[in-house]
């Protein structure tokens, strides 16, 4: 196995009226299956999220991505074991279980106006969005998924190849002086 690869933006950080920070390495597994995946996830002590929810805590989460797709977030060291366990648990079922850790970038947005900065980039009604909802949408010109941890903190996932675009976009939208006061 290769050594852990550095993240897309090497932990870039920008302080505007919302702070944008690239997360450290995050382990991610895409699981696609039409059958019931609850037993396979239960074997890893992971719950099954409802429609458009992200459940779990800390570094171990499961997000609902589509009716037959889940994204599992884990500490990077656990990915290989979890992928093997899921593959074994779903043996005989048509499924896909792939380590996508290096294919994605993770950004943390933090600040009291985090909803506003997200609303500037994404065609989403952030006023109605509640913590724990996983929303796949677009940010500017790229596909992105995000959820709110609380009213001040959000996490954004995007493809690694467009990580710089996403970072620069949110950094620009959080420029001091460009506050709109949408959700104040």
């Amino acid at each position: 196995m290769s050594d852990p690869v550095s993240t897309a933006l090497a932990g870039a950080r920008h302080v505007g009226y919302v702070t944008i920070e690239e997360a450290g390495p995050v382990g991610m597994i895409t699981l696609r299956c039409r059958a019931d995946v609850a037993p396979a996830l239960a074997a890893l002590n992971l719950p099954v999220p409802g429609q458009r929810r992200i459940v779990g805590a800390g570094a171990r989460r499961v997000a609902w991505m589509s009716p037959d797709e889940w994204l599992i977030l884990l500490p990077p060291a656990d990915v290989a074991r979890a992928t093997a366990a899921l593959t074994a648990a779903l043996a005989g079922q048509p499924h896909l279980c792939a380590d996508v850790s290096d294919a994605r970038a993770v950004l943390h947005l933090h600040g009291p106006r985090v909803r506003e900065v997200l609303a500037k980039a994404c065609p989403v009604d952030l006023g109605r969005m509640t913590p724990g909802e996983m929303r796949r949408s677009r940010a500017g010109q790229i596909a992105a998924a995000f959820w709110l941890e609380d009213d001040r903190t959000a996490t954004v996932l995007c493809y690694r190849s467009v990580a710089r675009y996403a970072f620069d976009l949110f950094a620009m939208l959080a420029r001091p002086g460009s506050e709109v006061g949408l959700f104040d």
Partner: protein
Amino acid sequence: MLMLTCPACGVTAEETEFAPGGEAHLTRQGPGSGEAAFEGYLFARKNPKGVHFERWRHAYGCGKWFHAARCTATLEVFGTYPMGSAPPPDLIARLQARRPDREGRA
């Protein structure tokens, strides 16, 4: 600007999150069909000014295809429903109420 509700993930979003897929409920003409039928399958579209049944894909969201009924003139969306199913009765009822003069089903 269209607002569509994806039946697969339940999100109501604006049209830039979706990708249009053209007319819905076409019958595929495969090997063994006549040339005229195949040409019609490939090229003949209703292209109405009025109620249109369409396919859309939630391209930036869950990635699933679904059906939508909307008016091409006013952009009013009458409803959406999953792939592989005919328009549900409540959608047809809503359509008839909004467009009593409408002819045919799709």
